[in-house]
């Protein structure tokens, strides 16, 4: 078993449903490709629920826009974010430079646009890493139980003992030069126990179901049980946790960068820009250098948390 299906599976299911319009699927017979109808209806239900939820639509639009400008920032920002002129330091907004200039004389608008790429990259990669590692370790521990389970539970306890910002401050400050990948690796290393706990609990619940026992009685091997029976039924809580975590990881990266242990120049990070604006309270006379990156960061985190909220509401039948 690899961890990849844990995140690709349901996404694929949702895309497939989107193509088919998501209508009239509930009674559809199992298709020849072997995706069982009951697995399908849960995701189709969730997709129906999501499309009608205005929170999801708004969050989805914001995120689509963010992903777009992360891939092609040139679409809406024509300048070079690293070409700065000290002569224009802290100048307020003017025609062609809507957000004004920061302390170094860089165009704030361009930097805000380019900062999206960093945040989205860190958020997506860290979440993917955490989801894969967490669901793999947690899922296997839950499935096999025994010594491995006990070991993993103690290990997650240990990691839970370290608040993540504190760990970041201690650990990242000891590493010399930090790229996006250093920060992502750190988040994955300290973030996986959260998902592992959820995945473990979820797998243990699913494992006790009759259909899993039946599959075992019919002679299904461990691999088949895990991939075909347990994974599709245990993955929903992991997706919910991971989606909500995505927003908090973006916020975490910005916080670490603000504390000076996150990303370093020339990487453009909203957190680092806000930190620079706060140095000696430079924003006192030029609030724009604080407000614009702060607004961009907050809207981004908000969009991802709203998405997580909507996905949870759609996937958690108890709340319906």
């Amino acid at each position, binding site marked *: 078993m690899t961890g990849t299906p844990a995140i690709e599976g349901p996404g694929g299911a949702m895309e497939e449903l989107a193509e088919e319009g998501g209508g009239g699927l509930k009674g559809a017979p199992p298709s020849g490709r072997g995706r069982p109808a009951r697995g399908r209806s849960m995701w189709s239900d969730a997709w129906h629920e999501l499309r009608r939820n205005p929170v999801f639509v708004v969050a989805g639009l914001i995120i689509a826009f963010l992903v777009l400008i992360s891939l092609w920032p040139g679409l809406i920002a024509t300048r070079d974010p690293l070409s700065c002129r000290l002569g224009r330091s802290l100048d307020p907004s003017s025609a062609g430079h809507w957000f004004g200039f920061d302390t170094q004389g860089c165009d704030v608008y361009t930097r805000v646009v380019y900062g999206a790429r960093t945040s989205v990259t860190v958020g997506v990669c860290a979440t993917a890493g955490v989801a894969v590692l967490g669901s793999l370790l947690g899922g296997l521990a839950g499935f096999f139980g025994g010594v491995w389970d006990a070991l993993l539970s*103690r*290990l997650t*306890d*240990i*990691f839970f*003992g*370290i*608040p*993540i*910002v*504190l*760990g970041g*401050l*201690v*650990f990242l*400050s*000891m*590493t010399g030069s930090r790229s996006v990948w250093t920060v992502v690796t750190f988040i994955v290393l300290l973030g996986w126990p959260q998902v592992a706990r959820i995945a473990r609990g979820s797998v243990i619940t699913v494992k006790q179901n009759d259909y899993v026992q039946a599959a075992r009685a019919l002679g299904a091997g461990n691999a088949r049980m895990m991939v075909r029976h347990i994974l599709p039924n245990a993955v929903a809580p992991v997706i919910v946790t991971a989606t909500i975590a995505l*927003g908090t990881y973006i*916020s975490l990266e*910005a*916080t670490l960068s*603000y*504390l000076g*242990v996150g990303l370093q120049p020339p990487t453009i990070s909203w*957190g680092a820009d*806000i930190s620079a*604006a*706060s140095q000696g*309270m430079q*924003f*006192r006379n030029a*609030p724009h250098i*604080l*407000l614009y990156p*702060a607004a961009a*960061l*907050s*809207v981004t*985190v*908000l969009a991802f*948390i*709203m998405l997580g*909220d909507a996905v949870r509401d759609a996937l958690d039948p108890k709340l319906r």
Partner: protein
Amino acid sequence: MGRYVVRRLLQMIPVFIGTTFLIFVMVYAVGDPVNAMFGERAPDPATAEQLREEFNLDKPIWQQYVLYMGNIFTGDFGNAFNGQPVTELMATAFPITIRLAALAIVFEILVGITLGVLTGLRRGRPIDSGVLMLTLVVISVPTFVTGSLAQYLLGVKWGWISPAVSPAAPLRELLLPGLVLALVSLAYVTRLTRTSIAENARADYVRTAVAKGLSRRRVTVRHLLRNSLIPVVTFLGTDVGNLMAGALVTERIFNIHGVGFQLWQGIVRQNSPTVVGFVTVLVIVFLLANLLVDLLYAVLDPRIRYA
């Protein structure tokens, strides 16, 4: 109950050892504190050797760890590299941070639970949706952004408060930093209370209490709230650790000389004894808070009894 406490304390030992060892390895394995003491210049080899011996840095890491932990349990947290005992730094820093965190918890409990009860009882109404949306926004804005904005607006632009806290950090000056520190958790408390209240409001025992003719107030406070608080208490317990860590950020913004400040100084100067000492104490606080939460369960829910 007594046996349960003992068992929980015993269970804490491996977790405590694991967590502190992890921190210890992070601090000592990645950086070289002796080199850091000399800054840009290369240290004289003989001096470096002597210092390494003095601080036990020449021994293997696990041996250093055992020696360090042995000292801690006799109350000796070692000296910072400038010779000042770490305990002295703690004595000035911890009261300030504890005051800050306590203030934040009071905000969380008072405002968070009140809002949660109000919205939970009016699920689906405009006030509910409004508060719910507001909590989402509050959760999304990172603490350092809220803090910087509050400092700019209240401290600089409108001049209501002084933008930085004086070294003594009296309670009055900590009000705003405390609120900033509390905000994100406060939003979570509101949401948790709301969900829990809304779920329990339909429970049989609530209907029974109403049918008995109890006043609305008594039903809400004595029956509904007490049963709905368990997830909230769990959250508050685990939040103690987050608040201590969040204080790192808040203290940085408002220039408060608490734990975050000392820890930061220790990290910038690669003063390993300070860093490990402070983090160890924070971990102990965190673990004890979790134990306290488990014990509070029994108080809140009489069905839970610890043998």
